[in-house]
């Protein structure tokens, strides 16, 4: 229901959530990313697509991987990019967010890439920026992380042919995961045959099935015959809130081991949005094993983010010329 992601002519203006986006658009993002991914292996890893554009990475929450890949993506598109880490605790909340935005806007930025600990923050920012500014959601609270979801879809597409034939299982802390919410929406939009979530009840949202998933509490049953296994990071603080007794028991019940993975299809791929907790949600043997595509996901992150940024800054005509 993200209302204002598309411009009047149906092009991407903001990228806030997968919800409400249609399949052709998701496919276009992946097709474009496919073209961009070749750039990364060239000697000169740059295209002049966003030359003269200013992109500000606004990170209200810590991140290394996401921020770095956004920076690299912007630089490879020849944009000027600055990254700001804003410690929310040092600023008075709400007020400062608006004030920060207005200050940055006064410097004539073209795009904000935003990460924030509150669900809906990217939406809020998109509502309050000047009309010519694009906002890309780099993760808002427990709500959405749409660029992560798209790089995951891109990775799946690289390995598997036809989304409708696939059975995908997402394991772990669905309740607090913006990645899972966006993945579920992306998988559903792309017509994936079956989406499963596997977790104890404490890590599932109530009414989870309304997201369009089949709910499993048991790894053996949930992993049977799946094509794609996605494990989610388990935050250490979940133990404190009585959501789980211990990391040890979690690994025993929900950790992805070689033995459990053997229940999936033999050619199943293993994914993780990172950073991984070895021995908590995934065994090292699996994370580093032949079925793992975890590092590929990171690589694809750059091309997918280049695709989304270039689409949001609407330079389709130039785009074709440059890639010829």
């Amino acid at each position: 229901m993200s209302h204002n992601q598309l411009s009047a002519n149906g092009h991407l203006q903001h990228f806030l959530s997968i919800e409400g986006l249609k399949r052709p658009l998701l496919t276009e993002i992946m097709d474009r990313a496919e073209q961009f991914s070749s750039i990364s292996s060239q000697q000169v890893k740059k295209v002049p697509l966003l030359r003269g554009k200013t992109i500000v990475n606004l990170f209200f929450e810590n991140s290394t991987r996401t921020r770095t890949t956004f920076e690299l993506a912007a630089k490879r598109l020849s944009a000027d990019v600055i990254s700001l880490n804003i410690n929310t605790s040092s600023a008075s909340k709400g007020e400062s967010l608006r004030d920060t935005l207005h200050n940055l806007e006064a410097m004539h930025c073209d795009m904000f890439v935003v990460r924030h600990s509150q669900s809906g923050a990217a939406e809020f920012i998109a509502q309050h920026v000047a009309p010519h500014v694009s906002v890309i959601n780099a993760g808002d609270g427990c709500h959405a992380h749409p660029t992560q979801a798209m790089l995951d879809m891109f990775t799946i597409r690289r390995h598997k042919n036809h989304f409708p034939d696939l059975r995908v299982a997402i394991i772990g802390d669905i309740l607090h995961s913006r990645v899972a919410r966006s993945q579920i929406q992306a998988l559903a939009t792309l017509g994936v045959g079956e989406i499963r979530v596997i977790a104890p009840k404490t890590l599932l949202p109530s009414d989870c099935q309304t997201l369009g998933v089949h709910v499993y509490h048991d790894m053996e049953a949930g992993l049977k015959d799946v094509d794609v296994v996605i494990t989610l990071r388990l935050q250490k603080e979940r133990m404190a809130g009585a959501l789980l007794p211990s990391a040890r028991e979690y690994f025993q019940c929900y950790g992805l081991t070689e033995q459990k993975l053997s229940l999936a299809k033999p050619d199943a791929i293993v994914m993780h949005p990172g950073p991984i907790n070895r021995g908590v949600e995934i065994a090292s043997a699996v994370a580093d094993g032949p079925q793992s595509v975890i590092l590929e996901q990171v690589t694809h992150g750059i091309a997918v983010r280049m695709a989304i940024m270039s689409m949001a800054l609407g330079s389709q005509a130039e785009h074709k010329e440059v890639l010829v």
Partner: protein
Amino acid sequence: MKIHIKNGRVIDPANQVDAQQDIFISDGKILAINTQPDGFAADKTIDATGLFVCPGLIDLSARLREPGQEHTATIDSETLAAVAGGITTLCVPPDTDPVIDTPAVVELIEDRAKKAGRAMVYTIGALTQKLNGELLTEMAALKAAGCIGVSNGLSPIKNSLILRRAMEYAATLDLTLFINATDPWLLGNGCVHEGAISARLGLTGIPETAETIAVARDLLLIELTGVRAHFHNISCGKTVQLIKDAKDKGLAVTADVSTHHLHLSEHDIGNYDTFTHVMPPLRSIRDREQLQQGLRDGVITAICTNHQPLDNDAKLGPFAETAPGISGLETLLALTLKLVDDEEITLQQAIASLTSHPADILGIDAGQLNVGSRADICIINPNTHDECQPTQFVSAGKNSPFSGWLFNNKVCHTIFNGKVVFEQDKIQSISV
């Protein structure tokens, strides 16, 4: 001042009146109904042809922000908003700053209200000192100062033993206990109803058990202590059932519901609309239906505003970081009568739930039109088609999720203590 209200359709549910009658007001009181007293010469005549004439409305829970947050709103600004909404009596919960836990604060509020002179403002005293749930307040002194009841406001008393004793002490003094039932642990840092919408938006949910467990515990303690109790602002269908069972058992309990819970649900949160951020949260559509049913069945007897004016900045931010609350004084009447237009409740039920029923809950002589009683009257134009525009509210709080709603009913005159304290300028009144 002598006022003659003529040709109005008088709706006075407590006296089972729904008829065209004239009302004659003199010296702050209703002098006569229907028959003009000998020698009555009106200073002001209000032609109420085609209009409803009702007792002044009574709101059981309105935060006026004074003392403590005068930068947000004041007793002056909010009583003006109240009478613009037809409300002539309102109750202030104890969670002001300082808390209403000493007679001095009661007197301060009453003084300011008297100075404003537009509406009767009752204070609800704190049940525990500073509302911290540990030490009892001097309830006898609060009662003597004018408190109409006691409450712990929005701070639930976690310790059941302290709550039991507070109830016993309030019962000793024959004070009504007003309860906002919440289990603090299940509430946690939630900001919306736990369900499909919280799952989708990634917002922390508040399960219905956060309310029902607290209501169930409190009802058991009410039974034990014999205190008379009123539940403010219930939000769940299951709470209605719990209250019904308690009433069937003979317990002295009553309940109110806010207009927004009767009209909105979690689905109205849409895309993080912070104007729908309210406590208790907007629940499911089923809950909303069951609250309406509770009203029809007489389990819930009063409709309140749960008015919480906020400044504009308070609603600007990511949803969970914004302040909860809705500015409700000026939509109470229109939203309640919308339930009549929607054929959910009868006109008599609607007016009673805003007048005589809340008066009964408070145990005050108000909410009906009797010869000799204080002339608090609300005159309503039932034939308007106005768009709700919160930016035009009289209240200092423009925070309303009802922007753009079409209302058929509008307050055109409010009379408090025999004085016209609000007059809608579009309506022409005939001055003699």
